[in-house]
Structure formats: structure tokens, C-alpha cells
């Protein structure tokens, strides 16, 4: 074997200095910087985004339906629900079982009660082991805790290696979909960004653009001291971390650098390795319509003595950050989520406004549930109203989370906690009284019918309802034909 080991003739091209926008600081928070209404208007003002979301998600939904045709799909979802519900109902037991196995396979485990601890723990591991560059594979947990800024603040170079996340990092953007981070970006925007980084005009061709990213990321993989990943599942009976990717960056991240750090929410536990035979087809089938993703990597600790490659150390940082507070309560089922994104794809609200409108890390119905639960009613509570309660999310959820009930429960909690103004409460109190009496109900609908006819123009009531102009600004009422 010839051994040309001179720098940079092999394995990629270094990324230009200053290629990445500075990471968002934990204090830099769109959820509190703009109201839900403003964020939604921004989303509505991006017609490309609406079209892109429609194209991508329609394709995914059709692919999902075809994937499960001829199988007992509902029975599989029911098994998935049981596995997730049992795991969460017995979380302390399964966590202890996982810990015993992880200890045995040589994994070092850390415990982060909140976002700040997670940032500190990861930064400390890096500093203690002289890490100057980390490569990351996609991790929603790291988005939750704003991990990148914590590492950059102590002088560590961070490189996102998922293609979409790489674009997000270069642009200083935020991901807008749980599995398709740059669904809201056009090819032209990616080309412009990459051309700036390359110092030359790159062709308008996804293959060429991907090739450019690959070269820079290859170099990062070959020079990184640590790799940071998330985890799709933690398997209690084997102590393993399961990672599901299509690009292969997950495995390179956790195999090439000398240290692997996985930041994983505690709710990712599943009881048994065999449960993956149910959960993997649900995750990939509902997520992308794929039979299986290209890579499913299952890690059980660092490299062993007789193995040719792999990291010297494997660290797992277990993240609580609001999860334990949901156990045993009315919103526990939110922890069953396996982050496939199907509820996002099908949600009529998400499809119009896009992921950024949700203001935090998770979009769509599950985002409207998790954000107020993890971030509090004060910052995230409005989101439970960012839904039509149509129930499409319940029907598509691979593990049958009753998202619609959770959203309704969050609305009720919001009212109970006094987050809703007196005007709105009084209106609904009167409405409730009127509509629970048949005579008044009939009278009210007759009045409504009559007034709509007066207000309508060409069969459409648009921005003309007195006192409801905010509500009608984004909605048209179509009058039905008189029977």
C-alpha cells in the first residue's frame, strides 16, 4: 500500500476560516423574541416554503401508505404504542437496566438535569481531553440545549456533518423540520451560500453542491478529536445506543474521532433490542416512507482491544430537562414520541406556516405539545392554539400518541392558569351557555346565517367580520349553497 500522508492531499479540503455563522446563544430565543402571530405571518410570507413543504410531505405521506399496504399496519402501531408506553411508565427501571449494561460495555455515563448542565458536561469532557474540533451528527437534543454555542464559547470548533444541518450552521439558520432541516431553503440559497464559502460560483446542481460539502466535511471528519451524536433509541437490555441515518455521517462521527459523546433524552429508552423490529419500520416508514434507512448503527461502548477502529472513549450524556416532570402526569404520552416527523408532515397548520413559526426546536403538532411542556406556558403556551384540532396527527402517529387530546389539555391548562384574557373567557362562557340550550342554539345559527349573507361578497366572507378582523386576516369563510 502506498502511503501518501501529506496533509490535505487526502481526504477532503479544509473548510474556509470563518465559514460558519456564530452559533445561537441560549439567550437568543425566537420563542420570546416574536409572538406566535408574527412568526406565523413570517412563515406565510414565504410562498416557496409552502410549496416545498407540500411537495415533500405529500410524497412522504404517499410513500408511507404504500410502504405499509398489505401489512397489519394498525396492529404494528398498537405494538409500537405498547412498547413506548411501557418504557415510559417504567422509565426508572429501564434506565437502571440500561446503566448496568452500559457500565459493562465501557460507556461513561453523565447525568444532565437541565440544559445548562448538558452544555457544561459536554464542554468539560472536551476540555479535559484536549478536544479542539468536534464533528456532529444530527441531534435534536443538542438543538434543545444550544450545545454548539457552549462549545464555541470555550474555543472549540464545531462542524455539523448532516448535509442539511451543515447548511443551517453555515447560514446561522435554524432547522425547520425534525428530519428535513432545510426544507424551507431553496437550492439557489444553498448554492449562494456554498459559492461564498468556495470563493467561486458553484453550479446550480444538487450533486455538485453536495460534492462541495462532502469535501469540507471529509476534512473535518479526518481532523476532529471528538464526535457528538444524538440517539434514536437507548436499548435497556443491551446498553446500546441506536442511530438511524441515511448519509452515513452518524457512523463516521461515532467511529473516526478518538472520543464519541452522545447526548440523548432519557425518554429514548426502549425495553428490549427485539422491540426495534417494531419501532424501526414505524420510524422509517412514517418518517420518510423508506423500508429502512441506509444506515442503522447500534453502538455498545468504545472500541475493544481486538477491533481495528473506533473511539477510545464513549460518553453518553442523559438529558432530563423537563422530561421527568411529565412522568405519571396527564401529558406523559408526549414522551412516547419517536421523532419521525409524520405529524408535522400531515398538519394543515404546519404545512402553511413552516417549522420556524413554532419558535423553538420542534414544529408541527408534537412541537405545539412539547414546547409549552418543556419551555413553560408563559413562553410556549400559545402554541396549543396553533392547531385546528382536526386529529390528522393522531391518525398518522406511528405510536398512537393522542396529540389532539394533549393539545386540548394544554389549552385547558392555559385557561386554568389564567393565561387567557377576560374578554376571550367571557365570550366563550356566553357561547357555552347559548349553545347548550337548543332554542338559543337554533336562534344563534339563524342570526349567524343571516349576517354572513349580508357580509359576504361573491359567496366569500373575507376580512369583514366586525371584531374578528385578526381571526379572519388569514381565513376566508365560504358560504354554502342554500338547500
Amino acid at each position, binding site marked *: 500500500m502506498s502511503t501518501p500522508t501529506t496533509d490535505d492531499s487526502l481526504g477532503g479540503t479544509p473548510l474556509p476560516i470563518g465559514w460558519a455563522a456564530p452559533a445561537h446563544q441560549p439567550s437568543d430565543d425566537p420563542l420570546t423574541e416574536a409572538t406566535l402571530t408574527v412568526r406565523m405571518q413570517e412563515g406565510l410570507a414565504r410562498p416557496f416554503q409552502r410549496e416545498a413543504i407540500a411537495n415533500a410531505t405529500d410524497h412522504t405521506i404517499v410513500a408511507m401508505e404504500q410502504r405499509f399496504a398489505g401489512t397489519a399496519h394498525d396492529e404494528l402501531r398498537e405494538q409500537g404504542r405498547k412498547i413506548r408506553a411501557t418504557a415510559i411508565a417504567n422509565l426508572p427501571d429501564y434506565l437502571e437496566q440500561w446503566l448496568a449494561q452500559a457500565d459493562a460495555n465501557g460507556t461513561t455515563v453523565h447525568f444532565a438535569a437541565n440544559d445548562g448542565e448538558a452544555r457544561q458536561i459536554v464542554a468539560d469532557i472536551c476540555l479535559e481531553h484536549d478536544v479542539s474540533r468536534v464533528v456532529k451528527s444530527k441531534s435534536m437534543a443538542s438543538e434543545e440545549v444550544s450545545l454548539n454555542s457552549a462549545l464555541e464559547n470555550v474555543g472549540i470548533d464545531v462542524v455539523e456533518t448532516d448535509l442539511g444541518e451543515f447548511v443551517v450552521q453555515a447560514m446561522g439558520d435554524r432547522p425547520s423540520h425534525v428530519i428535513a432541516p432545510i426544507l424551507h431553503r431553496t437550492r439557489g440559497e444553498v448554492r449562494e451560500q456554498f459559492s461564498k464559502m468556495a470563493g467561486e460560483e458553484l453550479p446550480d446542481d444538487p*450533486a455538485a453542491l453536495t460534492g462541495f460539502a462532502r469535501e469540507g466535511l471529509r476534512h473535518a*471528519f479526518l481532523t476532529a478529536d471528538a464526535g457528538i451524536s444524538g440517539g434514536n433509541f437507548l436499548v435497556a437490555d443491551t446498553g446500546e445506543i441506536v442511530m438511524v441515518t441515511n448519509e452515513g455521517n452518524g*457512523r463516521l462521527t461515532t467511529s473516526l474521532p478518538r472520543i464519541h459523546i452522545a447526548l440523548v433524552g432519557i425518554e429514548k429508552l426502549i425495553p428490549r433490542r*427485539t422491540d426495534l423490529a417494531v419501532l424501526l419500520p414505524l420510524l422509517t416508514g412514517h418518517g420518510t416512507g423508506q423500508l429502512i434507512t441506509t444506515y442503522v448503527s447500534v453502538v455498545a461502548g468504545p472500541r475493544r482491544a481486538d477491533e481495528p477502529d473506533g473511539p477510545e472513549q464513549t460518553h453518553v450524556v442523559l438529558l432530563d430537562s423537563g422530561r421527568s416532570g411529565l412522568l405519571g402526569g396527564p401529558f406523559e404520552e408526549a414522551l412516547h414520541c419517536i421523532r419521525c416527523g409524520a405529524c408535522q408532515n400531515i398538519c394543515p397548520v404546519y404545512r402553511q406556516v413552516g417549522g420556524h413559526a413554532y419558535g423553538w426546536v420542534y414544529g408541527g403538532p408534537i412541537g405545539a405539545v412539547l414546547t409549552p411542556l418543556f419551555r413553560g406556558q408563559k413562553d410556549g403556551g400559545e402554541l396549543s392554539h396553533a392547531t385546528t384540532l382536526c386529529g390528522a396527527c393522531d391518525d398518522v402517529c406511528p405510536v398512537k400518541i393522542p396529540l389532539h387530546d394533549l393539545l386540548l389539555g394544554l389549552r385547558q391548562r392555559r385557561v386554568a392558569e389564567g393565561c387567557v384574557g377576560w374578554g376571550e373567557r367571557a365570550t366563550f362562557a356566553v357561547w357555552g351557555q347559548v349553545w347548550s340550550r337548543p332554542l338559543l342554539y337554533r336562534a344563534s345559527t339563524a342570526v349567524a346565517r343571516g349576517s354572513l349573507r349580508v357580509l359576504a361578497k361573491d359567496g366569500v366572507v373575507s376580512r369583514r367580520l366586525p371584531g374578528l378582523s385578526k381571526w379572519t386576516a388569514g381565513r376566508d369563510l365560504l358560504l354554502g349553497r342554500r338547500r
Partner: protein
Amino acid sequence: MTDRAAFLATLRATPRGKNPGLPDRSSTPDAPTELRAGEDPIGRFQRETEATSASMSRVTRDTVGVAVVAALHAAGAQRVALTTDLGPHLEAVRSACWAAGLEVADYADVAPQRRQAAALDATVTGCLAAVAATGSIVTSAAAGRAGALIAPTHVCVVREDQLLPGLHALLSGDVLSAAGSLFALQSGPSRSADIEKTLILGVHGPGRVDVLFVELER
């Protein structure tokens, strides 16, 4: 920082939710990742492998070496590494590559230098098992964590007796006990559709995957 005892104590202090019980571990789920009743495993494996944009050729014990060289030539590969999970085919593959004038190394010798490993044109590996219903090969850390995806081309030799029907058989059997610190299902070339949903192969892992399926002598 929170220590283990305090972290667990917080969890232990929470009320317990409803516990529906787990599905029976021994029964195969009715999922797309399992074979249908009476389905031919080899035919399904070939179909699913090709559906991922990988190729699959059927070879015999005696033609493995020739087939590996043909695949490497087709990919234009010169620098090649072999992993130990080629097992009974390792020496035949090595001599065929030598005879064809390729630069051949053992992956275990190359792996410690990441840059050398990344300069490979191709890796030729065996596998721990293969899964018919998903068109997947199962690789393991015992043969190398990154060996099957570090180079632009991956040639994988699968023996017929390694083929399992579906995901459940893989996960519930004992074949994974030999995996070491990692096992992975790999199904076709590396792919991304992040840029306007346009499918691109070879993003980080190989853009080209050739599966050579060694049929049993009958």
C-alpha cells in the same frame, strides 16, 4: 452537576403511568421489514438490494475473487482494503486483487491512520449476516466500524447461509453476540435528499455498493 443517585432519585419520585405491557418477544411482527409467508428470501433480498440503488450479483465459491476484481475494475478502484469478515473468502479475494495489479491492504493495518483509510478507493468486506426483507447487510466492529463506509466504493461478499429472513430474526437471534462494540444494518449507498428533495448518492459513505451473493453448492 447532578450525580447518578440524585438523577435516579428524581425519576423514582415521580408517579407511575399506565403500563400496557409489552408485545410478545417471540412473535414476528407483521411489518414491511419481514418476509411474507412463502416468499423466496434470495429473490426478495435481490429486489430490495437493487431498490436501494446497490447492485447484486450471484456468484459461487470459486468465482468470488474474479467477481470482486470485476466490481473493483468497474468502479475504477486501485487502492483497496479488505476486512477480516471475508472469512473463508479472504485469501481468494486477496490473491485475485494482487493478480489484477491492485494495491491491497488489510483494513486493520490502514485503519489506525484515518487519512490512509480515507484515501482508499474501495473496501471489500464480508458481513455478520444479511437481512432478506430489507436488502441489508449487517456489519460489525469486529471487522471495523468504518470499514464498510469510509471509501467511495464498497464491495460486500454475502454467503447464502448468512441470509436471515427479516429484522426480527436478526434482532432475536444470537448472531449479534459476535458483533463487538457496534453492529450496523447497511442498505445500499449513502444518500441525502436535503437539497430540494433531490436524491444524491455518496454523501458521506460510499456512492457505489456492490453485493456479491455466494450461493451454496447444491
